[in-house]
């Protein structure tokens, strides 16, 4: 649609994108990003549009990102296809459906009227027709020209470099266990890479070349020592020295927060670290976790306690590393009616069960953030006791057998006795590769991280875009069947803790009574 302002608008677009100054350009990109991701115009008003010809929408309800994805690489859902709008595709001609490269002018037309640069009308039921000024279009154009443009470090046609973090007090045994899996998996890939690059039909022009599906995986080990508040500087220094395309797996005993924050700041894809204390944030995009770990356990216990309330709850732990779990329980909104008492103790001592017993009396409950060794040092302190399956590391102890007390385990894993076909698949893989299983959980997690990474790298094709890889994980429902250990995995945009719930399982005669388990989604 021609409007009187078209020429002016092209001039504006050019000045916004061609760049008088870098600063102007950056400002336009930032404002354009708010339009794309939040549906907010540079004026501060929400974007307005009609969809289906008559249904008004405002930008706060959904934005360009909702459908086209963080990467702008588009998506298909059911029978509908949302075409890509990322710079490498939008500003190039497309063969199918045929259209010329977009210009600022044709972008204005498709946004306002739904007519593509090739003259095709986009489905009115799906693509909203936006009310945008010429300046608004120029601003969005500036962002789209930057969207998924440029190439991230750590990847080319031959090599893909990843980092695996070994943080804090992670034991050498655990570190070796996951590296045995990572290195063997990468070894297999690298063998295939040799065959792949030896194939004759690699095309004569860049467009006709098949994208390289396999490239050599190189794994960097990033060890983080000292207190967690120094990890960020260590990560920055590793990354500056050897930039990587992604972080893969990883192991640590305490908080993962500094690593999660680093990945977010560097826009670095970080897949499935083996951590029990992930970074919790509603907005984080770059790290994908199996679950919320101990923080989920705290919520499971809080939900169970809220259903069967008591006046006094005592919780105990020794290592400072577990403080975030205790904090999550203490601050749980579900327990606002109960008194919650904290008993942190020195890890060299026995847990202060006598003090806890006195504090909770005959009707209270105790939450024991303890491992087997600590639990064995005294009789259970309360009539109702909660323990953590994560800290018990899959084995329960005879210390949990107490005729007079009830014990419940927070269990964010599949129930014992249930068929875990993904775990079996991992077992078969390990056996055939001669990988010794010494830490089944961490190793199966590392294996799943590798499977996911292999899958997304393959589907990225020639587009090396981290956000695209992450968008693909969001839509790969099929990967759920391959996830070991964790119950009911579900994926979706913005879903970064893949298994959302867990069980509260009664412990009877020292073992988890799977038949009586209750599934809780906090």
């Amino acid at each position, binding site marked *: 649609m021609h409007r009187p302002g078209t020429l002016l608008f092209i001039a504006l677009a050019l000045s916004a994108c061609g760049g008088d100054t870098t600063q102007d350009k950056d400002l336009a990109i930032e404002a354009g990003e708010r339009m794309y991701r939040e549906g907010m115009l540079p004026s501060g008003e929400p974007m307005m549009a009609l*969809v289906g*010809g*008559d249904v008004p929408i405002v930008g706060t309800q959904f934005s360009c990102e909702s459908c086209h994805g963080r990467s702008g690489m588009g998506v298909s859902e059911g029978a509908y296809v*949302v075409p890509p709008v990322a710079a490498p595709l939008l500003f190039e001609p497309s063969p199918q459906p045929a259209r010329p490269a977009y210009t600022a002018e044709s972008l204005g037309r498709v946004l306002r009227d739904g007519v593509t640069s090739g003259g095709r009308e986009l489905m009115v*039921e*799906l693509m909203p027709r936006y009310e945008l000024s010429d300046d608004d279009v120029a601003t969005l154009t500036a962002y789209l020209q930057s969207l998924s443009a440029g190439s991230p470090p750590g990847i080319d046609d031959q090599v893909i470099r990843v980092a695996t973090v070994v943080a804090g007090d992670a034991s050498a045994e655990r570190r070796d266990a996951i590296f045995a899996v990572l290195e063997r998996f990468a070894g297999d890939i690298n063998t295939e890479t040799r065959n792949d690059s030896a194939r004759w039909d690699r095309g004569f022009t860049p467009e006709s070349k098949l994208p390289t599906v396999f490239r050599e995986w190189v794994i960097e080990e990033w060890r983080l020592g000292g207190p967690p508040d120094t990890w960020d500087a260590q990560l920055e220094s590793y990354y500056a020295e050897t930039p990587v395309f992604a972080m893969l797996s990883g192991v640590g005993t305490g908080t993962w927060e500094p690593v999660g924050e680093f990945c977010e700041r560097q826009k670095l894809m970080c897949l499935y670290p083996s951590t029990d204390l992930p970074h919790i944030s509603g907005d984080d995009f770059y790290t994908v976790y199996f679950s919320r770990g101990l923080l989920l356990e705290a919520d499971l216990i809080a939900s169970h306690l809220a259903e069967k309330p008591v006046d006094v709850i005592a919780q105990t732990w020794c290592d400072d590393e577990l403080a975030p779990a205790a904090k999550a329980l203490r601050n749980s909104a579900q327990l606002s009616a109960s008194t919650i008492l904290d008993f942190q103790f020195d890890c060299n001592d026995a847990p202060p069960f006598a003090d806890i017993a006195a504090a909770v009396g005959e009707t209270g409950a105790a939450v024991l953030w303890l491992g087997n060794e600590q639990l064995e040092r005294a009789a259970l302190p309360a009539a109702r006791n909660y323990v953590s399956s994560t800290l018990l590391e899959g084995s329960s102890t005879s210390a949990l057998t107490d005729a007079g007390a009830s014990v419940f385990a927070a269990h964010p894993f599949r129930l014992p006795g249930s068929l875990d076909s993904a775990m079996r698949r991992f077992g078969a893989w390990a056996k055939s590769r001669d990988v010794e299983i010494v830490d089944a959980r961490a190793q199966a997690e590392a294996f799943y991280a590798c499977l996911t990474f292999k899958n997304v790298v393959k589907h990225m094709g020639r587009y090396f875009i981290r956000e695209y890889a992450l968008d693909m994980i969001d839509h790969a429902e099929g990967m759920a069947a391959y996830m070991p250990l964790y119950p009911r995995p579900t994926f979706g945009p913005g879903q970064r803790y893949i298994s959302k719930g867990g069980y509260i399982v009664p412990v009877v005669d020292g073992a988890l009574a799977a038949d009586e388990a209750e599934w809780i989604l906090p």
Partner: protein
Amino acid sequence: MNWRTRTCGLFAGLALATIAATSSLAGDDPHAHHRAAMKKSTYHVTEPSYRVPEVQLLDTSGTSVPLQELLQSDEPVALNFIFTTCTTICPIMTVTFAQMQQLLGADAERVQLVSISIDPEFDRPDVLQSYATQFHAGDNWTFLTGDTKDIVSVLRSFDSYTGSKMSHRPVTLLKRPGSESWIRIDGLANGESLAQEVTSRLLD
């Protein structure tokens, strides 16, 4: 089965606007050819019978809701399946429900809207509550989640189970009070068409 391809003929009167719009120049009505485009929009209407399973779902306040009772309402019912992190059709189906509610005006009070999440592990009651707020859902609109097993059984009983939420298709189901059969709309009907279907099939 009563298959009919329904071309939204509501905009036949806008034929002149269409001609104006295709010239892509003039037009006092800035949305003329959006409306014209609706001529191409099709959806299918059938009248199958479904057995609603005996399940308890959860509303946005976390209260248990027996689905059979809710759908046996004395009021006409309009039902759809959505999930809050859906990337294509759900936001549109939800704004369309909202628009239909507006277009029905005073009659909106007489129609019970129900949206059931097909991603119940993520869409907990609080998540659905903020989704409802985001889309300005009026009264008489119940958002439901529940146990995965129950949701799958609901989807299956309405012949809407597609194996994965990523192959989710747009379906709207309407029911007259006391009726055994449902009016099933496959496809993305716009607000006006949906309001028209509700008015002509449920409210007359």
